[in-house]
């Protein structure tokens, strides 16, 4: 303790040391090894060696650009749907939830407590060709007789949306909940229309939640492979499927690592473009 007293400035660093040390060892160092691996070539029999194999990147992009694009598109659509579903929901809980707020919030995060695989398998059952959902959709003519839901892009996007929706709803709720309701009332008086009031006051104030929610949904969604695996066909394969199969099935570590970086780069580029478009400065103001 005496030491700590004499060097008070050290305390925060001492507190940080174990945790950040752990992350340095098992988050930063692995990133280095991933980069290192992405420039390796070799085979199981010959072994793997570092050869500055930049062709891993060019090959990966030229062979798998389709899966990459598909991942970003699916993730984008899923994020948009999740936003459309959760915004009104979060709004309703924040302003109309009353004393049951906590209960409703609990329902929003409830899917997290059912094992990811089990809930995705449940969707497999729900969307099955002879399942109730398909039968209803056939009866009302949305689906033709031969058409199906399971093993289609619709099922994959729906699965992703469901699995990551709480990531969207929670930050939205957090930012909406902070808004002073009197502010909205004042705005309604001022702008005369509720829509105007919403667009000019509520929406901008909830923007930080929108940004956080979209990022927290989009990023894991873009790297997901479980939904495409369980609810899709090879035509819906995403980049995550390729990365995991290259690593764990065909042990093509070089290209698999290269693809991981390509995915990260694509995500980073999109995220930067997105935050720039929304205006980072405006965000700061809204806060």
């Amino acid at each position, binding site marked *: 303790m005496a030491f700590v007293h004499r060097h008070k400035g050290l305390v925060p660093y001492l507190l940080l040391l174990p*945790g950040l040390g752990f992350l340095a060892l098992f988050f930063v160092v692995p990133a280095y090894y991933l980069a290192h691996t992405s420039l390796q070539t070799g085979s199981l029999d010959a072994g793997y060696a570092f050869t500055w194999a930049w062709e891993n990147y060019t090959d990966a992009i030229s062979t798998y650009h389709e899966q990459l694009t598909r991942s970003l598109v699916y993730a984008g659509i899923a994020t948009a749907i999740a936003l459309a579903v959760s915004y009104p929901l979060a709004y309703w809980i924040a302003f109309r939830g009353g004393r049951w707020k906590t209960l409703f919030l609990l329902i929003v995060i409830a899917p997290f407590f059912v094992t990811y695989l089990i809930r995705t398998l449940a969707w497999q059952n729900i969307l099955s060709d002879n399942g109730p959902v398909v039968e209803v959709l056939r009866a009302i003519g949305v689906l033709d007789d031969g058409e199906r839901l399971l093993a289609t892009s619709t099922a994959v996007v729906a699965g992703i949306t469901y699995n990551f929706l709480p990531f969207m709803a929670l930050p939205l709720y957090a930012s909406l909940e902070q808004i002073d309701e009197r502010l909205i009332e004042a705005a309604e008086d001022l702008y005369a229309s509720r829509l105007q009031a919403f667009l000019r006051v509520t929406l901008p104030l909830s923007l930080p939640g929108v940004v956080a929610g979209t990022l927290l949904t989009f990023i894991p969604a873009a790297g997901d492979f479980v939904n495409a695996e369980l609810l899709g066909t090879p035509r819906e394969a995403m980049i995550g499927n390729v990365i995991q199969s290259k690593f764990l099935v065909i042990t093509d570590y070089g290209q698999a690592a290269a693809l991981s970086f390509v995915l990260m780069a694509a995500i980073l580029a999109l995220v930067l473009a997105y935050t720039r478009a929304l205006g980072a400065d405006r965000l700061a103001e809204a806060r």
Partner: protein
Amino acid sequence: MTSYAATPARVRSLPRAWAFVRRHLLTVYAALALLYLMLPIGVVVLFSFNDPVGRFNYTWEGFTLDHWLNPFGVPGIQESITTSLEIAALASLTATTLGTLIALALVRYAFRGRGATNIFIFLPMTTPEVVLGASLLTLFLNLGVSTGFWTIFIAHVMFNISFVVVTVRARIVGFDRHLEEAAMDLGANEWTTFWRVTLPLIAPGIVAGALIAFALSVDDFVITNFNAGATVTFPLYVWGAARIGVPPQVNVIGTAIFAVAVILMLANVLLQRRKEHA
């Protein structure tokens, strides 16, 4: 909509009717959204009581409590659950300790590199799981480390730290430092103040962080799959079982995990509330 056909005298109340419809719409929409969130959970719970014919638990065949009375009645499921719980306990304990320390540093001290640390903490949460799992695997492959129980533990601590930091930090931010100052004025030293005042006040945050870490650990499939080696956790068991038809016992365990998590969450919330009201 019928209000459009209303008499002129009532036209003035139109905005209010509109508001009513709109409020209703929003409520209906929210109800539908909540239903959508609950639907697969309902299916999971329902089929834990199913009495399937043959080995596929796809269609409703009749109610039974058999699987609930005998949740480990399928070979392999018990060992996988035990493994998962062991890893989750160790990983959440470690991650909660490390994460709480970071959260304390970030909130209570102004120091060089605080902004950078804040951003750094955010990174693991915004990296796709498949990349996190893959990069850890390359580390283990290159260093010749066998994957198994301890590599899963490492992976789980790694992705949990950030979630703990965020959860605990949210709690400390809203906490009144005057209480600590008061304690110090009364003659308590820093150490006593921390144990007697600070820790009890931020405990609900720590508990929430630990619960989240535990839940994420028990649930994780993607990162675990990369680094599991021959170790089989519960999600890995489910992944394998899905090949031959998931037995109803999996639904039982899934439902039980869900129930326990919800109860703990509710308890934490209620406790917090009671303290705040007291």
